[in-house]
């Protein structure tokens, strides 16, 4: 089964979950779920490339850092992403992200994301697939 993403319920906000055969793929799928909080990712054209690097003491903190790095790019550069290539080596994450400038008419952004939280945060391997999830504050 190839990687996929989904949202899960939180009382006030929204959970983002990525599932993949590798940890890196699960992280990439979580990033897709993040975009889907704002708009339908299939409407975001993967035209421009952005590099993101981050590191953290453990996998779960790394997931929060990764999502917060994306939230920062979205907030400061008004971009959305729809394709991700993630490489995780030890405590370091390197990613190439493709997307385009936010187009208010076409993307109709639902909500702005304030930050990734540590609520329902987990990164783990289950039945040979990786799950990476957390709740984002909107």
């Amino acid at each position, binding site marked *: 089964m190839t990687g996929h993403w989904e*949202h899960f319920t939180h009382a006030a906000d929204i959970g983002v979950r990525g599932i993949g055969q590798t940890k890196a793929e699960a992280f990439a799928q979580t990033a897709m779920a993040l975009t889907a909080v704002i708009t339908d990712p299939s409407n975001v054209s993967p035209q421009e490339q952005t590099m993101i690097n981050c590191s953290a003491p453990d996998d779960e903190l790394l997931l*929060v850092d990764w999502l917060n790095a994306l939230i920062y790019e979205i907030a*400061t550069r008004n971009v959305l992403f729809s394709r991700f290539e993630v490489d995780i080596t030890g405590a370091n994450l390197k990613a190439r992200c493709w997307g385009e400038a936010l187009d208010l008419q076409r993307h109709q952004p639902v909500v702005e994301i304030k930050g990734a939280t540590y609520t329902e945060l987990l990164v783990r391997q289950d039945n040979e697939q990786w799950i990476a999830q957390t709740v984002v504050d909107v």
Partner: protein
Amino acid sequence: MELNLLQKLNDYTWRVEPHGNMRVPAIFYADEALLRNMDDKVYQQATNVATLPGIVQASYAMPDAHWGYGFPIGGVAAFDAEQAGVVSAGGVGFDISCGVRTLLTGLPKADIMAQQKRLADQLYRYIPAGLGSTGRILLNQIEMDKMLKGGARWAIEQGWGRPEDLERTEEHGCMQGADARQVSVFAKKRQQKEMGTLGSGNHYLEVQHVAEIFKQDIGRIYGLTEGDVVVSIHCGSRGLGHQIGTEFLKEMLIKAVSHGIRLPDRELACAPIKSDLGQSYLGAMRAGINCALANRQILTHLTREAFARVLPEADLRLLYDVSHNTCKLETHEIDGHQRKLFVHRKGATRAFGPGHTDIPEALRTVGQPVLIGGSMGTASYILAGCKESEQRAFSSACHGAGRAMSRHQAKRQWHGRELIDELAQRKILIRSPSLRGVAEEAPGAYKDVAAVVDAANEAGLAHKVARLEPLVCIKG
């Protein structure tokens, strides 16, 4: 929530005795129905807060408490620096100093209804709302630092508002102790284009009419008349506050062990008030408060400009501006002694009673206005801090209804267009850049704000003064 976990003290007050690592009890202010509908997570979070070092008296949950991050949303806790007390980035939240300000227009509802559509369109044009909207103000490094130090006072010096607005703003519009050097370049960059923007989610600008006054004497002093129109603005410190929250949450989490703090939940990340990190956070968080105050001040100016185009006779005077995500150093009486405490209010409104010197002089005899937000089709309320409030929860009250349904469920249940049409039939005009955003914020997705306000009133947290009904809502 299971009621058998709680000891009932009276119809609106419930207690959890300290157990496990709890240093103090947890107190819930709510009626039985509200409590039954609260998530079990609220119990867990309120009791977790009670385990933090230096907590004083109790960990409190307001009637609108719901599942938050570390603290429940609707959580109040105070810490004593002299007893190794902590300051928690999670206890303030991502949206530092999110709050509500309400402006009196001096116009009756009929005047607004005659121009309702034009007013909605003008407000939507003037108020940048939603992701990707940018303000008209671009701050360079020097101006950014001045704004972080000066708050609403800075905004008024720039021409966005009237000097008399400051008297009606918490902290006189300028939070002391702000330290712009503790705010990272990332946080400042995130704010660069966001001054004077509303944001999204549950943030809004609403034109409302005073539908009912419950306490005429207080209403009169607040300048509220049944049938008159007011404007309420609900938003916070925008990207700057979110980034400060993100960065300090992580740092406090990583350094917790070296500070000798055992965290029951990562979101409760905190640092001793007297530590370098605690002081650094307080400086940054106070700068975040100033950012929120400046932002709401600029939005006030834009609202006045929009009104001037449609209803030039309107004179928009500020009733009050109060935040509901803060940590403030306040003096409270504990067992007959005056003590200086760091009071965290996460989704809770400060509610000083009559006579408190921090209340504007004109309102001092009746207590501080407590502004409770609704959601599009639902009512908002104005309450007043009361004498008993000081003994209840360090002079704190609720802040809103709280969600009853997740965004996910709301999106499946409602469609933005239908909702807007339905509200238009009820003479409520919605303007928003996102239909899905409107669906996710559907009035039905929120709890009954009337029940929350009644419980706050009955519990002695604040007096119910007036109910406001929406006429126009600008949603991010």
